[in-house]
């Protein structure tokens, strides 16, 4: 059995090692497992437990906890994040230490009720600046929502300058030596974790850094991976760099950017894309870029998309579906925040044109906004149809700039257009 690890005379790591874990939340890979870090802090008037571990690892956690404190000494349980990998052992801990008071972030209240499924729950919801005292030790809270769930917060031990940061600054990396100056090279794991877990919440990362950077920090104690005691501020600086805009923006504040991605089998979708660009360029203040997905790489495109205001995607329908590069592009959007960006789809088709509606549905699923119905053209675009594309580009650009002409619709028509989409899709899946 492993032992608890002393971060200081009063602070212990009481987490669990999970070296066998290979994929996390299904999508995240981890080549050497992970750790679930929980901590105990002892003050003159009681003990605080900060986070717990996943249910399957509860045994390790309780053994470590019992080695440093009695259950009746636990005065406070702080939950920096309610995801099951950190709250799995919570119900049992509450049973063993019924007197302990729960502290959670202001935005975690509904989630906690859902998690524990109890009506009579007693807890304190805290925001930035609130503190809880353990006598000669004080824990202060930082409200850092959406890193990477709405409920997340950080907790700072004032007397020892230790930041219990939750998933922030964490990574999936399992090494029993635990300290960043002792473990193997985990840089890739740190970067990978940021890219897949934190990057979609870039704005929230920036807000959190504004709260964290002014603190004096001796140790960063995250919920996964190495404890950062050697040059901890380097990791904060790295988050600052990673959350900065990827591309130097040459666009001035009044301009908006629209990117038209397309891919074409016989050139029809290319023609459409070019006409859409022509239309969009008629609107002052819109900067349009055109990219053939065949000639580029999704990783580079995703940096462009992160900084763009609007995205249009063109794909032909082949075998009742959009083509793979288009789907690859759309799945890469999950790595960044595209919520609220303007989006649209277009494309040519042979005898059935499902691709456009399917892409539109996916774009809506990503919470992008689609004010226009996409253009679909059968086979080779006629002059009239090309004019339709130009009009579409123009209207998309007008929407981007907020200068589009008013429209009046009947609700029935509005919903019929959407219903038609779903019907077409169900035909495809049969």
């Amino acid at each position: 059995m492993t032992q608890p690890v002393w971060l200081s005379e009063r602070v212990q790591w009481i987490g669990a090692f999970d070296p066998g874990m290979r994929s996390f939340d299904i999508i995240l890979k981890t080549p050497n497992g992970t750790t679930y870090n929980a901590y105990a802090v002892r003050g003159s008037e009681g003990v605080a437990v900060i986070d717990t571990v996943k249910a399957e690892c509860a045994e390790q956690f309780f053994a470590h906890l019992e080695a440093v404190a009695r259950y009746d000494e636990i005065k406070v349980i702080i939950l920096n994040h309610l995801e099951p990998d950190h709250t799995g052992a919570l119900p049992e801990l509450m049973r063993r230490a019924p007197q302990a008071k729960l502290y959670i972030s202001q935005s975690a209240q509904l989630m906690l009720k859902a998690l524990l499924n109890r009506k009579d729950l007693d807890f304190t919801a805290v925001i930035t600046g609130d503190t809880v005292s353990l006598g000669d030790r004080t824990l202060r809270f930082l409200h850092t929502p959406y890193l990477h769930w709405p409920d997340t917060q950080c907790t700072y031990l004032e007397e020892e300058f230790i930041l219990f940061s939750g998933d922030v600054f964490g990574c999936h990396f399992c090494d029993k030596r635990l300290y960043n100056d002792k473990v193997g090279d985990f840089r890739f794991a740190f970067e990978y974790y940021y890219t897949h877990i934190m990057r979609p919440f870039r704005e929230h990362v920036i807000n959190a850094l504004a709260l964290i950077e002014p603190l004096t920090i001796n140790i960063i104690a995250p919920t996964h991976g190495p404890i950062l005691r050697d040059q901890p501020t380097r990791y904060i600086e790295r988050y600052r760099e990673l959350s900065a805009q990827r591309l130097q923006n040459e666009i001035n504040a009044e301009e908006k950017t629209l990117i038209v991605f397309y891919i074409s089998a016989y050139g029809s979708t290319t023609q459409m894309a070019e006409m859409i660009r022509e239309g969009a360029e008629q609107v002052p203040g819109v900067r349009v870029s055109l990219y053939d997905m065949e000639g580029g790489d999704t990783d580079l495109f995703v940096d462009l998309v992160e900084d763009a205001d609007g995205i249009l995607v063109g794909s032909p329908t082949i075998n009742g579906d959009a083509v793979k590069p288009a789907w690859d592009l759309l799945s890469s959007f999950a790595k960044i925040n595209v919520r609220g960006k303007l989006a649209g789809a277009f494309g040519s088709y042979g005898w059935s044109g499902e691709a456009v509606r399917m892409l539109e549905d996916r774009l809506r699923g990503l919470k992008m906004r689609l004010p226009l119905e996409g253009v679909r053209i059968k086979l080779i675009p006629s002059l009239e149809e090309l004019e339709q594309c130009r009009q579409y580009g123009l209207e998309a650009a007008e929407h981007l700039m907020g200068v589009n002409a008013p429209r009046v619709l009947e609700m029935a028509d509005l919903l019929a257009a959407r219903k038609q989409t779903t019907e077409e899709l169900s035909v495809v899946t049969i």
Partner: protein
Amino acid sequence: MAKAKVTFSDVNVTVNVPVGTRIIELSEAVGSYIAYNCREGDCGVCLFEVIKGQENLSELSKEEKAVLLARFHEIMEGWRATNNLEALQAKMQRENFIGKHCRLACQTQVFGDVIVAPI
């Protein structure tokens, strides 16, 4: 059936709807910036602003009000500076923000003409 006009000022679209329609049934379809998440009145993400016609919307329930309050403290500019949730809530109430100017799109039904916008 009685009709009402809902105007989404950010996309400049007006929809003629039967009374009783919820804002969220329209906002996504017209491509408005009004966001949503849970669709059940829990998360507060679908907050929107009522520019005109607040008297034509369904009444504010206790639950909607609580979620609005929680949501506000999160998003209000300067809440960090005040660092005092109660003072902020008192201020919001005084200025009659909740329920009058701001509602949840997944909860609010339309009974007459309104103009709405994302926040």
